């Protein structure tokens, strides 16, 4: 009675023993921690790896000009120190993130070649046949050159001077052409007059550049265009070949030692290039956006600062930043799609976690009650359960982390990885401990509790409603997925679970009453069992609902995107196949060739149109440039019948158009929405006129704004019926410039005749269907959503198994009870299955509603993602309905199997004492 609260603590030995008593649930928890953190970390790393390889492939596919960072400048009289400083300055252009991935190539070539002061090889009156040599310096080229004779040019011990002899290296080809050998000494005169420079060949090299002898040397000669292949000029065109030789002017670049550059630039200004050639092998895909921003800021500040007094016309430029931006945009879209795909997965993961904790606590309920009665405080119990869970979750998470880190070398998002590991290690323990810490309410507060249950339900539903409204309100703002958006499926899953808990009694009570009236014992028992609480307790039903909701959401999401892609491909092509006249050729398509295509066996329907771009629509206010489509409305309507392009609005328009007649000089037309205001309500006599291929016609606009499918994306357009046009302008004959074809069912490839239409371009729907219009985005997001799908299936299976385990005992006990009363085994099994039917129905309905609702609510957010089709309505595929029932049904079957009708059940019955 002396030592009181405050000293209360946990017996470590008791704790250790207790772990042994619940090793089953703890093993499940450990497995869960391992799978959850492992899959998330591995997923992140794999996605990062995939993104990185896509990134590298994307950059490697760009030309060097698109990815290089360059600085160019004109240098004159620069000292070695100034040059070194300039190089250091340009080196600073390269962001630290690119440090390992760029190869610097510094080249300086004198602005105008010097002329070799030498008697003409063949003296002919006034012709001086003198080669011109450009002195060039490049440390990288010097290093990459392989000397076949002599050695690389190097300044003598005292350094190179303008007065001394400057050593040069010449390429093999240059040496052959100009008859140079090691030791040849020549004098170069500057083009502008002034002192000549004496140079001496110190080595002859084979340029291994270009053909790529080794890494790094590949681009060493990029800025030395004439070095490898001396340029040939017809020096004196009328001279003609001499002695079998062309009359040639040689121009070549020769290498001077980099140390001699200051001497050279003092002699003559040089064009300097600092090129940083990107080798994407060292880059991580996740860094694209930051790299781009950094490069942009460095380039702009470098352009502001310049290189210094010795340099003029400094230019720092790169196409790398826009290239990186393009990739980052695609990557953001892909990961936004991935987050959508993973949003439902979070719901299942939570459900699974709740179930595992519930089982862990359920197994220890007696022990916990005893401990509580013996005076264990909430804190002691919480730490008891928390430590139990920690003991397994921490090692499991650490193991998962280590495995991921060793097996998948690519680095993921570091912070995310640690966050996941932290959640994996601590999430379940904290959750379990906080459940236990809450002491059961002692006072007779059941009335209050019922009240708070309603408050809880109401709050959950309210949060769901607010979340949906919140997500819908943000139409068009933001480009990616924010937490609210990603959480929506989970929130709605919780709401669905709440609804299930309210629906089940509504469903079950009348059923129980009905079954009680009938004779069937099985029906009666099943209904009574269903009405009983344990099978339909909130946690189990909630977990199954969450899993089913996530499954429905995932399939709705995929189906919605798929359907949207199909619709988009229809809008883009206009049919299964489109043959259009090549822009520029101007003329109409060959009617015979088009007829041949239409007659091909695989073609179901066809329609042709003449499209006139940039025609003038004249209204009193002025003229507007419009595109005019001349079609046969009935024919076009036949083409699109039954396709996604076929909407009631389009149909009624086309019907109105084919019913309208033209008269001499007046043509009926549908006008696009933006033109409607211009052409309507004009006083008679000053109505709109259209100048169509230099014929002026009065326009009789039909009432409503047009939504002509082939014109999707075109702003101002008119649709004119072919018949009406010929009535208005009998003399005007026009061929078709575009033709659409739909395939018969089962046909996938265009007929061979389509390729034989002269001067035409062929587009098929099949080829635009492949992805989101961008291969990279398709590849990225397809990969990610596959990974999410695998995770969904894995977790849903875990959820089903855990739900089965959680309810198995109650069901086994009740069915064992039936068996001991002499019920036939089959009847007992039937009762066990039937008793779950109301729960299944309720879960199915709630999951379909919540999953579809989430998909529908997320459409605006989806549309905000770049490069993704914009569906207006979510699609509920039959697979979703199947998933909504399959998840809980599987749970029931497993439970029934787990209830083990027979010895096992009887044993457990005896053990639990009935």
């Amino acid at each position, binding site marked *: *009675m002396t*030592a*009181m*609260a*405050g*000293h*209360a*603590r*946990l*017996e470590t*030995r*008791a704790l250790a*023993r*207790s772990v*042994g*008593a619940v090793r089953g649930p703890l093993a499940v928890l450990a497995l869960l921690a391992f799978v959850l953190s492992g899959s998330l970390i591995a997923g992140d790393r794999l996605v990062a790896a995939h993104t990185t390889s896509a990134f590298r492939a994307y950059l490697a596919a760009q030309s060097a000009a698109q990815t290089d960072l360059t600085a160019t400048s004109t240098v004159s009289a620069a000292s070695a120190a100034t040059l070194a400083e300039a190089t250091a300055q340009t080196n600073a252009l390269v962001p630290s993130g690119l440090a390992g991935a760029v190869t610097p190539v510094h080249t300086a070539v004198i602005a105008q070649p010097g002329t070799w002061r030498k008697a003409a090889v063949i003296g002919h009156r006034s012709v001086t046949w003198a080669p011109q040599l450009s002195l060039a310096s490049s440390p990288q080229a010097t290093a990459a050159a392989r000397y076949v004779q002599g050695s690389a040019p190097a300044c003598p011990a005292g350094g190179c001077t303008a007065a001394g002899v400057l050593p040069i290296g010449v390429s093999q080809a240059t040496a052959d052409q100009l008859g140079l050998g090691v030791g040849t000494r020549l004098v170069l005169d500057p083009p502008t007059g002034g002192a000549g420079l004496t140079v001496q060949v110190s080595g002859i090299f084979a340029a291994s550049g270009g053909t790529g002898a080794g890494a790094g040397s590949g681009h060493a000669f990029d800025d030395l265009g004439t070095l490898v292949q001396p340029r040939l000029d017809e020096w004196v065109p009328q001279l003609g070949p001499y002695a079998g030789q062309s009359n040639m002017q040689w121009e070549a670049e020769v290498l001077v030692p980099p140390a001699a550059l200051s001497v050279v630039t003092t002699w003559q200004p040089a064009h300097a290039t600092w090129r940083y050639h990107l080798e994407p092998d060292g880059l991580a895909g996740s860094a694209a956006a930051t790299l781009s921003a950094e490069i942009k800021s460095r380039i702009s500040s470098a352009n502001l600062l310049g290189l210094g007094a010795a340099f003029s016309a400094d230019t720092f430029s790169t196409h790398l930043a826009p290239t990186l931006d393009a990739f980052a945009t695609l990557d953001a879209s892909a990961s936004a799609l991935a987050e959508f795909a993973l949003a439902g997965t979070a719901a299942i993961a939570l459900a699974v976690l709740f179930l595992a904790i519930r089982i862990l606590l359920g197994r220890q309920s*007696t*022990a916990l*009650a*005893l*401990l*509580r*009665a*013996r*005076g*264990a*405080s909430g804190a*002691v119990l919480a730490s008891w359960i928390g430590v139990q869970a920690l003991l397994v979750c921490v090692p499991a998470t650490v193991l998962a982390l280590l495995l991921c880190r060793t097996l998948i070398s690519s680095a993921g998002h570091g912070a995310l990885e640690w966050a996941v590991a932290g959640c994996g290690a601590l999430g379940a323990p904290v959750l379990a401990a906080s459940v236990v810490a809450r*002491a059961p309410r*002692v*006072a*007779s507060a*059941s*009335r209050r509790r019922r009240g708070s249950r309603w408050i809880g339900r109401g709050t959950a539903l309210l949060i769901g409603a607010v979340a949906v409204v919140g997500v819908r309100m943000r139409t068009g703002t933001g480009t990616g997925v924010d937490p609210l958006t990603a959480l929506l499926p989970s929130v709605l899953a919780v709401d669905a679970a709440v609804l299930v808990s309210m629906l089940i009694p509504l469903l079950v009570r009348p059923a129980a009453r009905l079954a009680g009236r009938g004779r069937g014992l099985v029906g009666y028992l099943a209904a009574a069992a269903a009405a009983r609480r344990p099978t339909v307790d909130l946690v189990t039903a909630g977990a199954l609902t969450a899993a089913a909701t996530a499954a429905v959401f995932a399939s709705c999401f995929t189906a919605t995107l798929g359907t949207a892609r199909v619709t988009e491909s229809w809008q883009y092509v206009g049919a299964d196949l489109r043959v259009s006249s090549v822009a520029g050729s101007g003329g109409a398509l060959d009617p015979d060739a088009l007829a041949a295509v239409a007659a091909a066996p695989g073609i179901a329907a066809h329609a042709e149109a003449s499209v006139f771009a940039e025609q003038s629509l004249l209204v009193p206010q002025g003229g507007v440039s419009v595109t005019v489509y001349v079609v046969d409305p009935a024919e076009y309507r036949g083409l699109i019948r039954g396709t996604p392009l076929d909407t009631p609005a389009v149909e009624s328009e086309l019907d109105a158009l084919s019913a309208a007649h033209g008269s001499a000089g007046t043509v009926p037309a549908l006008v696009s929405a933006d033109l409607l205001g211009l052409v309507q309500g004009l006083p008679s006599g000053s109505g709109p006129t259209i100048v169509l291929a230099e014929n002026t016609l009065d326009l009789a606009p039909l009432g409503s704004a047009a939504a002509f499918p082939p014109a999707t994306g075109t702003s101002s357009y008119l649709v004119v019926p072919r018949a009406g046009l010929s009535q208005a302008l009998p003399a005007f004959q026009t061929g078709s410039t575009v033709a659409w074809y739909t395939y018969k069912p089962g046909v996938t490839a265009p007929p061979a005749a389509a390729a034989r239409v002269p001067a035409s371009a062929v587009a098929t729907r099949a080829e635009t269907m492949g992805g989101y219009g961008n291969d990279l985005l398709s590849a990225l997001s397809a990969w990610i959503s596959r990974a999410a799908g695998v995770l969904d299936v894995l977790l849903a299976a875990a959820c089903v198994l855990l739900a089965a385990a959680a309810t198995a005992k109650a069901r086994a006990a009740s069915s064992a009870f039936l068996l001991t009363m002499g019920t036939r085994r089959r009847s007992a099994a039937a009762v066990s299955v039937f008793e779950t039917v109301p729960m299944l129905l309720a879960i199915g309905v709630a999951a379909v509603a919540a999953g579809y609702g989430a998909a529908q609510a997320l459409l605006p957010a989806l549309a905000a993602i770049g490069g993704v089709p914009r569906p207006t309505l979510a699609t509920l595929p039959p697979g979703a309905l199947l998933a909504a029932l399959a998840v809980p049904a599987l749970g029931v079957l497993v439970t029934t199997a787990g209830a083990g009708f027979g010895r096992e059940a009887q044993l457990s019955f005896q053990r639990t004492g009935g």
Partner: protein
Amino acid sequence: MLSQLNRLEAAVSGPAEVYGGDAHVVCDRVVRIYQTEDVEVQALQGLDLLVGRGELMAIVGASGSGKSTLLGILSGLDAPTAGRATVAGFDLGALSKRDRLRYRRATVGFIWQNTAKNLLPFLSAADNVALPMAFAGGGRRARRARALELLELLGVADCRDRRPTQLSGGQQQRVAIATALANRPEVILADEPTGELDSATAAQVFEALRGANRELGVTVLVVTHDKAVSEHVGRTVEIRDGRISTETLRAGLDPAADADGADASGTGTGTGVVAEQYAVLDRAGRVQLPREYTDAAGLRDRVRLTLDPDHVGVWPGHTRPPAPPAPAPISSEDASDD
């Protein structure tokens, strides 16, 4: 009017007389109502009970009469819906979270009927006994020593390193008693501790409780169906319909029997020498008449009461009382509820 005011004033200023005074366990019109989805069960309907310090008392009653409910409230695991329950100065209806912990740890020990519910299956007997001491704080060695001492006291010292599953039912219950005694509680509550045991073992277990009561001075309340137990305690109360209906005192068995101060108007049961059964008159003036009596005298619905100088007579409503000068006869409804 004025006198009424005066009386009210007196009631406010004067020292209010608290029911039960300094009794160790006080139940003052304790009501416990269970509320489930659609039914309300009144398990206790204004129960009054006083138990003196160091008393050993048995509680009997038909199944469903509310015995376990009463013990649940007294153990601090449950709380009364209305009324006041006080144990060793703790008002159980208004315990703070902290006080509830203190109460469970050090003031009360509990033993359930189901042997499996009393001990943690994964701990040895000694560890089980030591566990509550760990909650209350205290050195490991002291705990161990006290655990062994208690096991010794209860005659199960040789079982100290065995797990509960390796013990017989009687041994388990005795270890459970040791566990309940671990923190030197003032009150031990036992809900049918011998329910699962044969009579010989039950006697052993009961003897252990009696020993604890005698040697440690602990107040013990035992719920039992076992005649052998109830006949060996000085005071047995019977609960009927959520109230104490009768009380049996056994002279010579328990001298503390009168410490409760209940107004006991006795009628000899005629069963024998030692035991005397009393009906209990509660503070609202209600008495539960034993069924045999009401049946035998044909008492139903309405009865007539007569006040004689030394007793009150109860007559069937349809007969005239024989006594010549009855002061105004009082009609009384059968006080089953209000």
